[in-house]
């Protein structure tokens, strides 16, 4: 398995996806080797619950991102060349375009099939191709999808997107939903203490938003909904968890609403703290404008918090409106405020939604199921 991020190098969903899948494959008696990039404080090689993890240092750098990607792929290739002297691989599994070069090289060198998982696309992330780098990344995404024997995506909306955009044959692409480890969400949480830690007093509402602070997450629209929500719930507090390059801009938007003092930006916090916050919140808002899957929705469902989400991409497949969550219109602060009100104004309905959500989660989104379906894809690729 090739991925530019693997725990503890965690940025978006790819690291957690690779970790969950790799561990589940090992549990199913497969031999899994993950080749990834180094991270300060982590060893160059270790076994994590049976998964063999090789972390590779990039010994040359370059200020340009694409050049840097080419360089780190070279060092991944060198590491894989060493590993392939000891290990006979049956299939290569590449995650997203960032490790495309190493994956494609090794596909041809080893004469083994390559499976690609597309977690998102450049045109979706950037909401268009606005720069020369974006055009290059889009081209690399097409190239690696073309070279792959099989392509995996996490939602039907992503399947439609990549089949349309990259002109892929419909039957080359398999949909395997994401999953989460529900055991992490079973620890008991002192809601009062957690809320107090984040400045939410007794009798106040905690409206939570979790996501990277980048435009595709639509957090600006959540912030613009705050003054509407505050009219009906003046006691509500708003906590935004995550970091990203748009943070300065979003903080300035928050100040411009006149309710900036009610909006807390936590920055990056640990998984345990995210889970505790989710379990302590009154509502979780996912205001994305582009979301290939939306694993944060599963995390909210597991934590037992009612979810209000944009009806976009994978979110539209994960949530059933008014049965496991509430859909709102993307890029629409009034609609987000309506969704939050629907939860806060009817606690019994909110509880019913969370019960339904937990049932659906346990039935549908387990890593064991993901591993089983992925093995079927590997078998198709091997032929």
């Amino acid at each position: 398995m090739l991925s530019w991020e693997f725990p503890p190098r965690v940025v978006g969903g790819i690291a957690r996806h690779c970790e969950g899948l790799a561990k589940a494959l090992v549990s199913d008696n497969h031999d899994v080797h993950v080749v990834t990039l180094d991270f300060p404080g982590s060893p160059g090689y270790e076994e994590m619950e049976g998964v063999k993890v090789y972390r590779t240092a990039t010994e040359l750098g370059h200020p340009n991102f694409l050049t840097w990607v080419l360089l780190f792929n070279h060092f991944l290739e060198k590491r894989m060349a060493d590993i392939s002297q000891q290990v006979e691989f049956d299939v290569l599994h590449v995650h997203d375009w960032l490790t495309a070069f190493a994956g494609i090289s090794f596909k041809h060198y080893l004469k083994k099939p390559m499976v690609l998982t597309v977690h998102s696309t450049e045109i979706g992330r950037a909401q268009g191709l606005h720069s020369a780098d974006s055009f290059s990344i889009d081209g690399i995404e097409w190239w690696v999808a073309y070279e792959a024997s099989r392509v995996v995506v996490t939602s039907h909306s992503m399947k439609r997107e990549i089949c349309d955009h990259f002109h892929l044959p419909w039957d080359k692409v398999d949909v395997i939903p994401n999953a989460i480890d529900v055991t992490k969400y079973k620890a008991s949480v002192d809601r009062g203490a957690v809320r107090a830690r984040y400045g939410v007093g007794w009798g106040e509402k905690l409206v939570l938003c979790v996501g990277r602070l980048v435009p595709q997450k639509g957090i600006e629209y959540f912030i613009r909904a705050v003054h509407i929500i505050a009219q009906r719930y003046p006691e509500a507090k708003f906590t935004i968890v995550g970091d990203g390059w748009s943070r300065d801009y979003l903080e300035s938007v928050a100040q411009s609403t006149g309710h900036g003092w009610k909006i807390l930006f936590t920055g990056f916090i640990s998984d345990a703290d995210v889970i505790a916050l989710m379990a302590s919140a009154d509502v979780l808002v996912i205001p994305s404008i582009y979301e290939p899957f939306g694993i944060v929705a599963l995390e909210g469902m597991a934590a037992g918090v009612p979810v209000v989400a944009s009806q976009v991409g994978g979110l539209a497949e994960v949530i059933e409106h008014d049965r496991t969550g509430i859909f709102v219109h993307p890029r629409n602060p009034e609609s987000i405020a309506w969704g939050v009100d629907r939860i806060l104004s009817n606690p019994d309905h909110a509880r019913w939604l969370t019960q339904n959500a937990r049932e659906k989660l346990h039935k549908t989104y387990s890593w064991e199921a993901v591993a089983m379906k992925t093995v079927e894809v590997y078998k198709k690729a091997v032929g």
Partner: protein
Amino acid sequence: MREDPSSGFSSGPELPDEMRLLVMLHNIGATESGKSLTVQQISEWTKMDTSTLQFHLQKLSELGYVQFIQAEGTDKYHLTLDGIRKVLSIYS
């Protein structure tokens, strides 16, 4: 070019200058104390003048994304773990 945030907003604001510097520091490998770089070295890589660099490095340091160490009689800079995550969030 990304669109102006005031023009209907589709892809968000421009990457701020200090964030561009953070990205470049990451990509040239200044990601731990052993790989820290002096302002002069960073200037050679990035083609930014040293006074602008010092201004941005100060801000990045206050934000917790960059750390400096004293080595060989001079300040040397590298990204913190939060700084690395901040950079990676742009492309993930």
